[in-house]
């Protein structure tokens, strides 16, 4: 927050953006916390929607509009529906289920907090007040040009991977 205030005093231009960023970030962190702590599986999926929408907004902040649109289409549109289908197919009751939490929660919390401490120290140490200047949105043309020239081999590999995953999912889940 101190760093945020510093930047705000340097350039008035970014005040609104930083306030909006803070609101979205707090919402995302609360929603992510609910995803990993709520006892209701359906509620967890719905809180995940909030996190994914927040991630899309962060992409917009960073000027990556095509990634933001893809995030909304693929994640909120398809992945969440898959999750809700999975919940429906694997559980009869839709209410709270106290059996979802494992016994090793305290140990998991320690691991998470320590991991965050290491990451935060490393990040603050290496990128103290590095600015990221976003000058306008990144065009879809540039992204598609890059995909179909420089990154054509990984693109084809991803298409083969998706085909393999499709066939694999059918083979694994098929009844016979």
């Amino acid at each position, binding site marked *: 927050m101190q760093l945020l205030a510093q930047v705000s005093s340097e350039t008035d231009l970014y005040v609104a953006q930083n306030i909006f960023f803070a609101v979205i970030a707090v919402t995302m*962190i609360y929603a992510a916390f609910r995803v*990993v702590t709520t006892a209701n599986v359906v509620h967890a999926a719905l809180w995940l929607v909030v996190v994914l929408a927040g991630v899309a907004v962060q992409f917009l902040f960073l000027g990556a509009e095509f990634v933001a649109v893809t995030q909304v289409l693929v994640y909120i549109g398809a*992945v969440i529906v898959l999750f809700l289908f*999975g919940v429906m197919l694997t559980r009869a009751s839709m209410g709270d289920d106290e059996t979802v939490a*494992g016994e090793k929660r305290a140990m998991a919390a320690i691991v*998470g907090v320590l*991991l965050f401490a290491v990451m935060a120290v490393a*990040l603050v140490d290496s990128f103290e007040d590095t600015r990221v200047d976003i000058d306008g949105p*990144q065009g879809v043309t540039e992204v598609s040009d890059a995909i179909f020239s420089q990154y054509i081999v990984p693109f084809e590999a991803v298409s083969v991977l998706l085909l393999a995953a499709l066939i694999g*999912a059918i083979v694994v889940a098929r009844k016979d």
Partner: protein
Amino acid sequence: MLLNQFLLLSAVLFCLGVYGVLARKNGMLVLMSVELILNAVNINLVAFGAFRTDVGGSVFALFTIAVAAAEVGIGLAIVLLMYRNRRSIDLTQADLLKG
């Protein structure tokens, strides 16, 4: 805006996802926590792409989204198979390989 805003936010999401993977024993909830981790990675990729004014960050974020979609499909198929075989998706019961 600061680069660290985005990186720290993504670190928080990543650690919450790690906590979810370790603390949950319902297969669906573990898959959701994995999605949190993958989204944290995507924020990092796009943030560094914007920082370097390189389009590669966005391209790799798109690849990650595709791989995550494939992962969810396979993961759900495995969870459904597990449910069909043992009427439960409690991961602590999946201990056939435990020594």
